[in-house]
Structure formats: structure tokens, C-alpha cells
């Protein structure tokens, strides 16, 4: 009963340890390979689009980055620098296209506004589990007390009944 409360409070400290910052821009590092699988080097026009689900048709956000410097396949861009990223949801799927090279990447899951939103779910789930167990133990304890009180009164009634026989 009481120790559950202690554990519950101690959890709050743990949550703050694992929380992350909110981000409106997403710093994205990617790999660009040509259609034959070799790592691309040079400047590429990359088209980024974000979808709500792995298989949805229309993107909810898109941005084109021209002349992105790609070195041995590696590149980095700041998504949201041209078209503001105002995603309030939970998880999205990013698709990268390089039309000139004719390549299109698979959809990669990325976090919406940072992991902070996800943390709320973790916290909610954890809280509910502990709350449920705590409340159940509380109800058990209360019922126990009631029964014991009843037993005592019944014992008194019984001794009185036997005394009057």
C-alpha cells in the first residue's frame, strides 16, 4: 500500500532522466545510393516527404532540398528549414526521393515532435498500472478491516448469547 506510493514517486525522478528535448526542425542524416547500389558523390536534388502511415498515398508534408552535398553516400539536411515542420502527431514515415538519379528510398519511421510525446504514453501506461494495483490493494485492505470489525462484533454477540443461555 504505502510502498507502492513510494515507488510511484520514485518513478517521477526516473522519467525526468529519460526525457528528451522538443524539436521543430529535424536534423536528418541519410545515405544516398544510386540504382546500381554504389554510394553517390556529388550534388543532388532531394525531395523529402512525410507520410502518416507506411502505405498512405498523400504526404502530409514535403520539402525539396536542392544541391545537397553528398559525400560517399552520406548527406545531412535540416528538415523543416523551408517548409515549417508542425507535426503534432506521434510517429511519421519519411520518404526520400532523388528524381534525377531515379532512386526512391523506403519509408523510414521518424519521431514527430521528438520523443517527448511518446514519453507521455509511457508515463500514462505506467501510472495506470501502478494506480490500478494501488487501488486494488487499498480496497483489499479496507475490506479486510471491515471483515475483522464484523468478526469482532459477531464474537461479542456470540459470547453474549452463550452467557444468557
Amino acid at each position, binding site marked *: 500500500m504505502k510502498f507502492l506510493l513510494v515507488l510511484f514517486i520514485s518513478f517521477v525522478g526516473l522519467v525526468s*532522466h529519460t526525457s528528451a528535448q522538443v524539436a521543430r526542425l529535424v536534423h536528418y542524416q541519410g545515405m544516398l545510393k544510386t540504382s546500381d547500389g554504389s554510394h553517390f558523390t556529388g550534388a543532388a536534388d532531394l525531395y523529402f516527404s512525410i507520410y502518416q502511415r507506411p502505405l498512405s498515398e498523400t504526404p502530409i508534408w514535403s520539402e525539396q532540398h536542392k544541391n545537397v552535398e553528398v559525400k560517399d553516400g552520406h548527406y545531412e539536411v535540416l528538415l523543416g528549414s523551408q517548409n515549417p515542420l508542425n507535426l503534432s502527431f506521434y510517429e511519421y514515415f519519411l520518404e526520400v526521393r532523388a528524381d534525377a538519379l531515379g532512386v526512391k528510398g523506403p519509408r523510414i*519511421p521518424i519521431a514527430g515532435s521528438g520523443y517527448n510525446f511518446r514519453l507521455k*504514453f*509511457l508515463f500514462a501506461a505506467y501510472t495506470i498500472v501502478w494506480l490500478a*494495483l494501488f487501488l486494488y490493494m487499498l480496497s483489499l485492505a479496507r475490506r479486510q478491516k471491515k471483515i475483522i470489525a464484523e468478526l469482532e462484533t459477531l464474537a461479542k454477540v456470540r459470547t453474549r448469547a452463550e452467557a444468557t443461555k
Partner: protein
Amino acid sequence: MKATTSTNRAVVLLGGALLVAMIINLYLIFMLAPEERSMGQVQRIFYFHVPSAWVAFLAFFVVFIASIFYLWKKDRTYDMVAYSSAEIGVIFATLVLITGPIWARPVWNTWWEWTPRLTLFLVLWFIYLAYLMLRSFVEGEERAARFAAVFGIVGFLDVPLVYVSIRLWRDIHPSPVIAGGEGSGLHPDMKLAFFFSLFTFTLLFGFLLIYRFQLQKSTIAVSEIKKQLAY
């Protein structure tokens, strides 16, 4: 009442072990287990969602065995175990049904998916509910115990059949979203956290069961005394 002092001691010891296990478990879940790559922090729900499911099944198994013994031996104690286990089991089943969607929302972008496990748990929850309702809707405690025992046996044997039929159904309509991938290739620290969590929850179940059983025993004792005094 003399037996209660030794059982009380056992309960206190178990409670102490449980407290220690819970603290270690929290450490393992939140500090030791690494962050999962694709799901992030929210994956940690897994460490108490799956053990809750395990406990819900374990509790139902206890109901099953206790129901058989009750019908066979006619000893009221078995019925008390069955009732206590059912009450605890329904709580854990409810927790599975709550933490499941909470986990699913940020990971799959939807509150509910008819996955085999969640669907099975929905059915299990309803069977539990029917069991508990049967208990309270029947007049006469001994009768209620008998009916509930029969239903408990039927219900438990039904669960694998339900699971098989859901699986066959899902094979025809596969889930369109990316699955969680919680079982595939767990990091050893994650394995440790998970199995310890399983252990802790089992301990918790045992503790709650003993506690609830004693309460049930006292409740029955009270009604027995009341009946005697009524003469």
C-alpha cells in the same frame, strides 16, 4: 485464528521480497535496459504489458485447476482460491487491454488493431467478466461456487480454441502496419529486464492471491457465523 500468525509471517516475508523485487525491476526497466531503436522509450511499456498478460493467463489457469479440484473434492478452500484468482486475473487482463492501446497509439498510429494477442485478451476479459457476474447473480453461495467452477473449466478450455481461430482469421487478413518486433532479437539487458519483470509480476500475483484468499476465507467465516447465530 491461530493459523493466521504463521501465514501472516509468510505474507509479510513475501511482501518484503516483492518490494525489493519491484525496486530492482524498476531499475532494470528504466535504467539498465537500452532504448529500443525503432520505437524509442515507449517500448518500455513492453516490460509490464507482457508480464501482465502472463499473470492474467496464470490466474485463469489457477481458476481452472481450482475449479476442477473443487468439483472433485468438494472442499470450499478450492473455491476460495478460484474466486480470488479470478478477481486478480480480471484486473491484470484489464491492464493488458489498457496498456496495449496506449503502446499501440504512438507506435502504430492507431488505438486498436485486431492482433491475435489483443483480441484474445478482449475475449479472455469477457470470459472473466462472465465468471464474476455468474458469482454475484446466483443465489446461494454453494450453488454459485458450483456454477462458477463449471464455467471456469469451460472458459479455460475455450481459450486455446479462440486463439487458434483468431490466428487463422488473421492469416487471411494480415495487419497492414509495421509490427512492434518486441520478440525479435532482444538485447541481453532487455532480456534480463523482461524476465525479471516476469518474475516480479508472478511474485506480485502470488502475494495478491494469498492476501485476497485470506480475505475470502474471513468473509466466508463471517457468513457462516451469521448463519449459526440466526438459529
